[in-house]
């Protein structure tokens, strides 16, 4: 039973409910079973989030809420740097994280000249060695040791998404752009996708009891528009486009950053690992993923499912056989 693409069927004339209460009930009961034609698949699209140029302005959060008409998630001062959103949720599909790395890197700072460590390294001399007609050689400027990392988090749109595997209603589908999309008229709020997501992206809305998350602006993409967050991002930290193209761009950027001394710069989720698929929304990070609140090595829960079933069925059958044996063998007159 494939045909999970009934997005296009919504709003069709067939959806006109027959009159009366009975009609409403019938419509409610039959609505989820209607089927439409799946749209023509398109090249997979996604996000590439370059955290090295994120300025933490949160324009993505606001643009997302405004376009999708999402409610505010409550006014709570967290004290965790400038992050008062706290987490991704059914009401916050973008979340900008702030990581302050100051004293933790003090030892490093003391080794790097001129970054507040009060070194007496004669920088003037070093600068004079730079070529006269080109730009100042970049290796004169080591990356600062004191860092305030910022990152705009979002649904990862996994190529093999646990939430999509989990969804028992078929509400979560891959749309024609290869994005993971929750059909809001199908979801019944079982919350299994929430449990399945290793990135903690999805929650259930207090308003309608359904699971919500980033749609990668499916509606905008269908109209040929860029997702609201990427459109609003002033520094191109959030880039949208065909995934293949984004990966190329990202790889180039990592090389560039490495040349400039950002040794830890790397891409997160651009390639599949043993335990997890590649992400269609992937990141350029300047530190370990865990620092940004991402699992260092995400595991797709489905890699274990077969074995778990096997053990369960084996012990279940063993129990049944044991019972059968007891019933057949015990208490019979010899």
């Amino acid at each position: 039973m494939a045909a999970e693409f009934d997005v296009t069927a919504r709003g069709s004339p067939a959806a006109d409910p027959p009159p009366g209460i009975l009609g409403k009930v019938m419509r409610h009961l039959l609505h989820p079973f209607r089927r439409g034609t799946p749209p023509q698949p398109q090249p997979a699209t996604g996000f590439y989030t370059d955290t090295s140029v994120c300025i933490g302005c949160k324009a993505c959060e606001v643009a997302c809420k405004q376009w999708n008409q999402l409610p505010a998630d409550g006014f709570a001062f967290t004290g965790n740097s400038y992050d008062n959103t706290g987490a991704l949720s059914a009401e916050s599909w973008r979340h900008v994280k702030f990581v302050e790395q100051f004293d933790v890197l003090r030892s490093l700072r003391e080794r790097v000249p001129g970054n507040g460590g009060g070194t007496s390294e004669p920088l003037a001399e070093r600068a004079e060695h730079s070529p006269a007609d080109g730009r100042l050689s970049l290796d004169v400027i080591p990356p600062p040791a004191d860092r305030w990392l910022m990152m705009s988090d979002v649904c990862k749109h996994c190529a093999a998404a646990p939430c999509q595997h989990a969804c028992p209603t078929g509400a979560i589908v891959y749309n024609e752009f290869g994005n993971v999309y929750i059909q809001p008229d199908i979801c019944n709020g079982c919350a299994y996708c929430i449990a399945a997501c290793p990135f903690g992206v999805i929650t259930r809305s207090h308003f309608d009891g359904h699971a919500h998350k980033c749609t990668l602006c499916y509606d905008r993409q269908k109209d040929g528009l860029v997702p609201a967050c990427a459109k609003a991002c002033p520094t191109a930290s959030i880039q949208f486009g065909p995934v293949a193209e984004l990966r190329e761009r990202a790889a180039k950027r990592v090389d560039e950053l490495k040349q400039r001394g950002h040794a830890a710069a790397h891409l997160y989720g651009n390639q599949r690992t043993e335990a997890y698929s590649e992400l269609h929304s992937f990141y350029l990070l300047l530190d370990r993923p865990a620092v940004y609140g991402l699992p260092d090595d995400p595991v797709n829960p489905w890699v274990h499912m077969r074995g778990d079933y096997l053990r369960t069925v084996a012990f279940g059958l063993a129990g049944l056989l044991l019972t059968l044996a007891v019933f057949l063998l015990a208490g019979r007159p010899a």
Partner: protein
Amino acid sequence: MTPSPTATGYAHREVTKPPNWHGLVVWDVMLNAVTTGVFLVAAVGDLARPTAFAPVAAWAYPLALAVLLADLVCLVLDLGNPLRFHHMLRVFKPSSPMSLGVWCLTAYSLPLTGLAACALFGWRTEWLHPALLVVALPFSFGSAAYKGVLFSTTAQPGWRDARWLGAYHVTSALAIGAGVLWALAEWLGASEAAGLLRWATAGLILLGVYPAVRFAVEFRASRVVMVVVTVLSFVLPLVLVATPQAAWVAAVALLVGGYVARSALVHRPHRS
């Protein structure tokens, strides 16, 4: 005075979000164990020793059906939008343990209803009864088997590492079923069935020790829960197997022990 803590960052936090599963889900998992356990053991008995088990089975199927219905009520009410329960039936997705489970439960409920009706109205035909049993058995087994796998096939702390959770759940369900039927048989005065069920209970409890230990280790269960569950689900019923009059106490111990374990299971992600 030590400097005040500043921004805490994210590294120490659990990344995943716990699903909104609380009391109703605990009851769901528990009732799932009871209905499938009671039915499976009764069905095996009914097929293997029909005469001995007839009086017990007559009560067991309606009981299993009643518990299943209660279970389904819990399941539906726990949804974010209970009025959309039927959306579960618009696709069959074996990749999703929940989809598989819903279909198993549905398929299990139909012959079980027939069996319960037969039992209640005293219709006993040569072919219908065993046919219904044979149809219900695999779906009932599936209903018991999917539940644990549903939890272990998630990204939640505790659950994601519990490779033996499904095996624990299913053996525990069978033990509970056997214990409940044993008590039922004692109450009905079906002494032959009671004797058989006594041994089955003991055997199933012992079978469950291995998966239970493996599960407890992976799950990193709290010490209190481990002690309570060990005493109620294993030690006490095993001791009581020797005294037939204590069947009720053993059954209650198994039920309570099973509930405590499942409550700890369901609430585990919320504690992280």
